[in-house]
């Protein structure tokens, strides 16, 4: 197994509150890894450190062959990262424009992605005319349009109703199977974590440690049917038990 993302002895404090003290983690290449843990355990902080938005206080981290053009990060507040002065199409095109791709290439990539997502957008309208769920799908497509090798996703489905939530999970898996990126996913929803991930990493309270890494061997694509499988419940129960210990409940 090849490790694509790693951190050793990472240190980070905010106003004298220690989030990470000698924190280490390894994320396998071409796998979906979900991070599940208590509030304030530094899940978003970890993603922000790894992507260079937030400075570490100490330790080391590495993303293999890191390159901004092959990396995407879907923020929690996706609504505020879409550009309201650009049409929906121009929003998706932004990362490709940044990479100086031709109009034709952009058009082609967007069409490919749209086939995968099987979602009809009015490309000429603006993000503020879309519902919250549609905006999230738009932000997703914007992140995937560059074919990233590494994808960070922070609470992607929290604003969605259950139906759209399931739909977006399906799209993400389709994309994953087609392009096999390394995905690091933060979620507060245990069902989401187990449904999507190969590996579920459970965090402790701060100062944060990795309590356990649990495998979910269910094959992809995982459908709604997979949610009802015996194996799904076994893995979910296991994750829950570890989480229970983490929060002393």
């Amino acid at each position, binding site marked *: 197994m090849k490790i694509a993302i790693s951190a050793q002895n990472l240190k980070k404090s905010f106003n004298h509150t220690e989030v990470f003290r000698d924190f280490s983690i390894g994320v396998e290449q071409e796998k979906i890894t979900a991070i599940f843990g208590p509030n304030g355990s530094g899940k978003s902080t970890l993603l922000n450190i790894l*992507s260079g*938005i937030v400075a570490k206080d100490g330790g080391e981290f590495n993303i293999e062959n890191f*390159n*901004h*053009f092959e*990396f*995407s*990060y879907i*923020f929690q*507040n996706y609504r*505020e*990262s879409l*550009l*309201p*002065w650009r049409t929906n199409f121009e929003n998706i095109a*932004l*990362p490709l*424009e*940044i*990479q100086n791709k031709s109009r034709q290439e952009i058009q082609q990539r967007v069409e490919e992605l749209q086939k995968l997502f099987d979602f009809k957008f009015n490309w000429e309208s*603006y*993000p*503020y005319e879309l519902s919250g769920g549609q905006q999230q799908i738009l932000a997703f497509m914007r992140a995937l349009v*560059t074919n990233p090798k590494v994808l960070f996703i922070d609470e992607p489905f929290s604003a969605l109703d259950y139906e759209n939530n399931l739909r977006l999970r399906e799209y993400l898996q389709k994309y994953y199977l087609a392009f096999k990126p390394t995905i690091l996913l933060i979620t507060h929803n245990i069902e989401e974590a187990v449904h999507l991930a190969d590996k579920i990493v459970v965090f402790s309270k701060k100062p944060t440690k990795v309590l356990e890494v649990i495998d979910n061997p269910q094959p992809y694509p995982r459908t709604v049917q997979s949610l009802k499988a015996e194996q799904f419940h076994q893995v979910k129960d296991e994750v829950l038990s570890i989480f229970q210990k983490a929060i002393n409940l």
Partner: protein
Amino acid sequence: MKKYTIIGPILLILIWAVAAQLQLIDKFFLPDPFTVIGKLVELLGSGAIIGDLFSTLGRVVLSFIIAIAIGLPLGLWLGRSEKIYRSVEFIIDFFRSTPATALFPLFLLIFGITDKSKIAVAAFASMLIIIFNTAYGVMHAKKSRVLAAQIMGATKAQIFRWILFWESLPQTFIGLRSAVSLSLVIIVVTEMFIGTTSGLGRKIIDSQITYEIPTMYAIILLTGIVGYLLNLLFLTVEKRFLHWSGK
């Protein structure tokens, strides 16, 4: 335009008419609105005021163009770095707080008793407002959008062109709208001073001196209409192009 927006002007004319009718103020100093409006129509119809109108408008437009040409790039540039802006903030705020008309004698010394000094002082004051608003627009850009672009690997130039510039536009437009109003105010006031025989300000002061009171009111009314229309023009452009503002 909504139907009820017509209530405002009607109300104004009504109050004016009642005040004139009741002779709350000497009729000589406050003619009734219909006399004034009649006078204005006559002035415009005969073309007597057209030359002055265009000379004032010409000065306003010229000073405004100069203010944009200098203020907009400077504001965009200063806003890119909060440190740079803060270090010159005092100068901008100081001159912004100084009544521009107080600087007019100084501009007269520098530019002479010509149109240049009027245009320069109006341009100067408008420019400060444009700098201030544009720089603030850039500085207060949503961090999340800039961050998203940075993560996509955007260069500084790309972030500026595709994000910061657009982010600043709503605030810039507020600046432009205030600046054009101020420009009109300064031009009209300075026209009253010295160094010109044309312009609405000149004609207001002339008719005051010669006690052509209805003419004075008519031209005051005209300057008001010009100011209002300029504001309306900017609001319309803003609505059309900044449809996304605040979304």
